[in-house]
């Protein structure tokens, strides 16, 4: 864990002085927890190491020194990803910021077709955050890491003055190995590919919005936040020539498909009737004037699979608990003109363009 002292020592300030007496029990994070001294050590021991038990962490160095395990299919390349997580509220139906920070980065690493192995986690904690809340988040991260079969090997803690951070920000970096022979990326979509969405759209975004309580509605919808690497391995066994994998997070399915269309320089044609969406999510979107295609997902993936492997791919995803509602939602078609587009055949047989999300999602009355 990082031991650097947080406070500027060139000016005397009694405000940030950390208490020299070893106070063993705290209900809330205080600024002293970020000082790098004894209180920081106690925090690390009592909260973080109680849940993150990798032997490297327990050695107490400022680094982890690793001998990566042999990859059965060959050494391959590394997949590395980093992400910062800011979510309000910290706890929502189906998950919390901890589960999100582990799942999100594990998923990004796994979308390369990689086997995620390690995660680092950096915490920026607002002074005054309850210890109980921090513990819950950390415990959840450990649980999610176990679920994803990865280990947290390095971390950092900083405490920021009250008001300068909204409770808790977490940044995670993930590392994985891509087995030899796998070439899965956004540039590889090809004409004729089937596009599979692994489940219902918009669950996470709507669950979080409802929990915020700002738009006057409540639902029983839960966030779909989950690590998908296990499901991806099941998919790649059945469809080894999968071309693209991506999780449609912020901006939703629409934005992610536009990104891939741009990268691969293809057009995409969707079928509105094939889009999986829960009735409650559809109802909430209609009430507020949102389109489920633009709402964030945190436990879903889009897979571009050659047509010959599409049935096997769909069956494989559906057989996994996180992919029961998977569906083929469209296909890749040749580019027409200069600009890649995502188009959709509507319920009544018309066609419309599905654009990228522009700006913030706002509820409307029109």
């Amino acid at each position: 864990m990082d031991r650097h002292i947080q406070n500027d020592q060139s000016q005397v300030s009694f405000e940030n002085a950390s208490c020299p007496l070893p106070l063993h029990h705290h209900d809330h994070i205080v600024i002293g927890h970020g000082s790098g001294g004894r209180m920081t050590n106690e925090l690390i021991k009592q909260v973080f190491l109680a849940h993150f038990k990798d032997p490297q962490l327990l050695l107490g160095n400022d680094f982890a020194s690793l001998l990566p395990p042999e990859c059965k299919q060959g050494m391959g390349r590394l997949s590395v990803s980093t992400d910062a997580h800011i979510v309000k509220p910290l706890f929502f139906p189906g998950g919390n910021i901890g589960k999100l920070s582990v799942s999100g980065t594990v998923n990004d690493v796994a979308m390369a077709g990689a086997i995620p192995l390690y995660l680092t986690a950096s915490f920026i904690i607002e002074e005054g955050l309850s210890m109980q809340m921090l513990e819950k988040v950390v415990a959840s991260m450990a649980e999610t890491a176990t679920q994803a079969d990865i280990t947290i090997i390095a971390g950092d803690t900083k405490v920021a003055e009250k008001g300068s951070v909204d409770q808790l920000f977490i940044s995670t970096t993930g590392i994985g190995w891509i087995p030899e022979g796998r070439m899965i990326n956004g540039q590889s979509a090809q004409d004729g590919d089937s596009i599979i969405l692994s489940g219902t759209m918009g669950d996470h975004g709507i669950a979080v919005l409802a929990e915020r309580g700002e738009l006057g509605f409540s639902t029983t919808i839960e966030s779909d936040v989950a690590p998908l690497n296990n499901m991806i391995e099941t998919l790649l066994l059945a469809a080894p020539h999968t071309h693209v994998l991506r999780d449609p997070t912020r901006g939703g399915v629409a934005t992610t498909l536009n990104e891939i269309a741009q990268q691969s320089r293809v057009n995409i044609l969707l079928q509105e009737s094939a889009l999986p969406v829960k009735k409650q999510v559809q109802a909430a979107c209609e009430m507020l004037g949102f389109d489920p295609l633009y709402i964030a997902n945190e436990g879903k993936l889009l897979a571009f699979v050659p047509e010959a492997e599409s049935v096997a791919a769909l069956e494989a995803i559906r057989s996994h608990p996180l992919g029961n509602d998977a569906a083929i939602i469209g296909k890749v078609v040749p580019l027409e003109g200069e600009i890649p587009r995502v188009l959709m055949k509507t319920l009544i047989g018309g066609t419309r363009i599905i654009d990228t999300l522009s700006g913030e999602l706002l509820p409307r009355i029109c």
Partner: protein
Amino acid sequence: MCLGVPGKIIKIYDENSIRMSDVDFNGVTMRVCLETTPQAKVGDYVIVHAGFAINLLEENEALETLAMLDEINKLGEEQE
């Protein structure tokens, strides 16, 4: 201007002297003001816009229209 969605009133209550309700839309519950539809009762369907019930939904009218369309389609005739 007209984002209006039909839902079913499941509870009516007074909140700070304003007549409010919980309206169900396929499992989503929304807080809706009923001051504009004083005659609405629990079990009624209302059209909701900007957090207000702008009118009651006339169920029998909806059914009549669908029945009429069904009739026309079955006969396959034009009654223009």
